[in-house]
């Protein structure tokens, strides 16, 4: 009983918040006063539902989702592995630091032609996503590892606890906030980057392509509808991951 009232209250707050932002949107719409620059919320939602009725829509989403998923997984796995290696082996850290700095600041545009050569069109967005997300994961997790409580590590070392338990029971829970913050950052980032890269590489089935054509034809409502869909999908992903992480272990 008590729990459910609490839940209800939370949902009501959420509704108010969403209402607030929709109102802000409408106000901006009226101020700008041009449908082709800022369409109304109502028109945008209309377009969203129109899109939902199309068969191709799901295929486009599926393909883009696949790329986002691969991009996130690859950059997360490689990012955490290399952060781990860099943490445990100073020489690897020395080697990786300039590499990651380079990755962090190399403009995507400059390597896109190499990317197009190395990968097929469908995979270029995955590569670009990796390029953007990997340094974020690496930086964040390495920082997390460096902040791990040294007292507990000493304790485990003295008791000759096996490395695998130390990793699982001591490192993981303490690095988790950093992992969460990294994931929180790259999930949003990856949607954005994959779609931007789709605009550059133009794979046949992709949300980026739809966005591009909406823009070329000045169909601002469709453009906004896609943005709404992207934002919703990315929030869903984030919520899903938060759930999975929350279940995967106890909170620190």
């Amino acid at each position, binding site marked *: 009983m008590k729990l459910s009232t609490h839940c209800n209250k939370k949902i009501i707050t959420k509704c108010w918040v969403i209402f607030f932002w929709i109102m802000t949107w409408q106000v901006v719409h009226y101020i700008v006063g*041009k449908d*082709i*620059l800022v369409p109304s919320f109502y028109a945008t939602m209309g377009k969203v539902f129109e899109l939902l009725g199309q068969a191709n829509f799901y295929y486009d989403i599926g393909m883009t989702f696949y790329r986002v998923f691969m991009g996130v997984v690859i950059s997360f796995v490689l990012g955490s592995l290399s952060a781990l290696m860099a943490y445990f082996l100073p020489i690897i850290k020395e080697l990786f630091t300039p590499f990651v700095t380079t990755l962090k600041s190399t403009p995507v545009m400059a390597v*896109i*032609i190499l990317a*197009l*050569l190395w990968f097929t*069109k469908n995979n270029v967005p995955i590569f670009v996503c990796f390029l953007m997300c990997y340094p974020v994961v690496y930086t964040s997790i390495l920082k997390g590892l460096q902040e791990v409580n040294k007292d507990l590590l000493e304790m485990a070392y003295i008791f000759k606890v096996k490395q695998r338990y130390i990793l699982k029971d001591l490192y993981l829970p303490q690095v988790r906030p950093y992992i969460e913050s990294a994931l929180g950052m790259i999930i949003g980032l990856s949607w954005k980057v994959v779609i931007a890269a789709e*605009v*550059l*590489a*133009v794979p046949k089935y992709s949300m980026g*392509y739809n966005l*591009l*054509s909406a*823009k*070329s*034809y*000045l*169909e601002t409502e469709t453009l906004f509808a896609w943005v709404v869909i992207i934002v919703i999908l990315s929030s869903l992903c984030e919520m899903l991951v938060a759930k999975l992480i929350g279940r995967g272990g106890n909170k620190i």
Partner: protein
Amino acid sequence: GCATKPVEPLEVAALNGPTGIGMVQMLEEMEGAENPKYNIALYQSPDEIVGKVVSGELDIACVPSNLGAVLYNKTEGGIKLLGMNTLGVLYIVENGQTVQNIEDLKGKTILSSGKDSTPEFVLNYILNEAGLVPGEDVTVEFMGNHSDIASKLMAEEGTIALLPQPFVTTVLAKNENIRMAIDVNEAWNNLNQMDLPMGIIIANANVVKDNAKGIEAFLKDYEASVKFIDENLEDAAALVEKFGIVPNAALAKVAIPKCNIVYRDSSASKDSLNKFYEILEQANPKAVGGKLPDEAFYTLQ
């Protein structure tokens, strides 16, 4: 009272390509002028121009021809056609010797940029007319921008690509194995007995109404500038380099004549433009903003 007020300069936008080349003389004249008649800015992408046309910040703009129709429809008649300034500049180029005419493209892959814009529609049209079905007989691979295609063309033998000027000139200068296989504009001309309109000049409808004199003067100057380029290739090339449209004058000298820079006023452009829009509309109504522009687009009153 009107005469004493200093005249507000017209805000003019052109793209950093052939449309910009057409204006180099005006750019040169405006530079350092006391009371410039025009504020000319060169933009890299149509995106920027679109926003500013819609908001009314720009008075005159040079845009790809299909974008003119889109803007006309989306602003509900807020713009008008001033004239046509660029004709076809598209070529199919090849790193190799296999393609001599359109039929040779059967079974091949063509790289192209400009998904959802003029290059795609034109290419599809001439392929169809030659009895080739895009997607079945010929694979068209779209890429984000010209320079990626150019790089790939130079790096890999056997690549076939659809490229506009002045990229074609740049690529040809860099690698002697690359050659122009098909002149797409010629093909279009043969099919339609009409020019292929690539770029047009548009103006804000309010400005056309309120400042008819200014617009008229602008068009005169533009025409003069085009003539200057035609007649003084050497000087024009130097200016093109100066304003950073093409990196060096030598290259510009080769590229300028291929860019098909012209000036046709609105009534002279109407037929070829309308034909072009019809073809686009058949392919995809969105490409002209939903419907063909009506008569008002072409008339300046």
